[in-house]
């Protein structure tokens, strides 16, 4: 069976390779700090559940401190020169698209056609993480095709992966650490505290104000938590179900759909949703790390307003 665990090992080996390559680069501006950072991340992936929980916590804090002290820096950029890339593009033409398209195609194929495929009695793909595992297979197929098309070695692929990881720096681990914070928030009861404050602070005696408070609270809590899935149960339980459905008789399916979309408007506006907003800014090498959020505000804010009105006018349908 191809399991998620296999891809954890693969990613762990990739980070270990990044750490070793960093260590071997003479003249790297922050050789040891950077190698330590990626080395620690490699340990988290390679050892996984075998690490005692407290030690894994120490590891995470150590990574954050190394990154926070500015000790993680990219090595020398080694992208091939532009004329060389243009020449390769002219020579390889449409063949370059083939590996790039292999990722979504194999992912879809794995998640649909191979869903129930089995070797003997064992399923071929990890059933609990079907999409991720299919995508991992897609990435490997793409790498193999890319090597075939360009006649480069897989090792060159690892070097190029290091170039991209280097360009993103600590932004790579930010979504991961934010997810940890989200879990800690729910363990500490932050959601309950927010619901308590919202329901006592806002007068919900007009139907329109109740609709507006519901949508805005959903977006705001998502801005804070970085995740609509964390905000939805809190605000739906605090305002949506007791007030909108209970007191004003709103259609629960509509309340749920518009509530979740209001939360998504929040996702578009927050650096806490790092994998959608901060990582792409790093990936596209933008100088302002909030540039993607700024580009999304003119869509998110009018859409939130539209949600309030859609909820208000459609709620008794």
């Amino acid at each position: 069976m191809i399991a998620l665990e296999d891809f954890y090992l693969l990613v762990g080996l990739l980070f270990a390779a990044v750490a070793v390559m960093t260590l071997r680069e003479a003249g790297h501006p922050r050789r040891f700090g950077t190698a330590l950072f990626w080395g620690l991340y490699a340990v988290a992936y390679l050892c996984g559940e075998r690490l005692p929980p407290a030690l894994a916590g120490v590891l995470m804090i150590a990574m954050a401190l190394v990154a926070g002290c500015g000790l993680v820096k990219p090595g020398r950029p080694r992208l091939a020169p532009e004329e060389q890339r243009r020449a390769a593009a002219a020579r390889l033409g449409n063949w370059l698209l083939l590996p790039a398209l292999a990722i979504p195609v194999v992912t879809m194929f794995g998640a649909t056609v191979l869903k129930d495929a089995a070797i003997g009695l064992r399923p071929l793909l990890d059933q609990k993480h079907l999409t991720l595992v299919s995508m991992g297979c897609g990435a490997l197929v793409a790498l193999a095709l890319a090597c075939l098309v360009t006649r480069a070695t897989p090792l060159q692929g690892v070097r190029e992966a290091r170039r991209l990881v280097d360009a993103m720096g600590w932004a790579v681990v930010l979504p991961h650490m934010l997810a940890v914070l989200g879990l800690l928030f729910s363990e500490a009861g932050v959601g309950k505290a927010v619901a308590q404050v919202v329901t006592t602070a806002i007068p919900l005696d007009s139907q329109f104000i109740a609709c507006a408070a519901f949508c805005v609270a959903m977006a705001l809590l998502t801005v804070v938590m970085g995740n609509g899935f964390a905000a939805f149960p809190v605000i739906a339980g605090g305002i949506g179900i007791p007030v909108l459905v209970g007191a004003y008789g709103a259609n629960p399916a509509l309340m749920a759909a518009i509530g979740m979309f209001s939360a998504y408007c929040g996702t578009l506006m927050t650096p806490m949703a790092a994998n959608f907003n901060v990582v792409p800014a790093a990936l596209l090498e933008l100088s302002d790390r909030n540039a993607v959020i700024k580009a999304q505000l003119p869509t998110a804010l009018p859409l939130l307003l539209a949600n309030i009105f859609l909820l208000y006018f459609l709620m008794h349908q």
Partner: protein
Amino acid sequence: MTNAVNLWPLLGIAVVVAGFLLRANPVLVVIAACGVTGAAAAMPPVHILESLGTAFIKTRNLPLILLLPLAAIGLLERFGLKEYAQSAIGRVRSATTGRLLTVYLFARELAAAFGLTSLGGHPNMVRPLVAPMAEAAAETAARQAGVELDDALRQRIRAMSAATDNVGLFFGEDVFVAFGAIVLMQTILRAEGIEVDPLHIALWGIPTAVTAFIIHAWNLRRLDARIRRELARAKDVR
């Protein structure tokens, strides 16, 4: 007792907000917020460490979507995938940045609505293909006007490419019945004794999904107008 809920953990939120406002390193802000939240909930330090460690290991599936395609995409970049995408879009005469991104928005949102969320994404579509094409379309216009594309505008176009991917994904996937969010909504409503058909939740998402497309497409038109304006101004200056 009406105030049985412990409000102290809200301090964690305060740390996050303050940290982002002060533009501190986000990774440090997150760790500080973890410490403050744990302490405010009266967890002993070892318990906080264990909670963090368990969560850190459990959520390490999250970065995989970003990390797995990097080797293949990086290799293709070395052999000119971006340059290929740019020359391909340069041959389409009517292509403007805004129109190109509107087509991508439509395709991304529609595919996500049919559950095909993997047809897109920042590492495997936006960085190697969508952003370079959007940039190249503006570059072609700049070349025709005989001016250079300035860096701020270039960065804005790239940011808008990432934004378009996000908007298409978010407001498309919730219209798909088998999506996790819909299952979550149904579960929460059921816990409160309300039965809803997942199909109804998906259907009631459509008005917002359409509105999202209209608003974002409008913003993409405004981006085109801004590109035209700035190119005209650069031409006048010259």
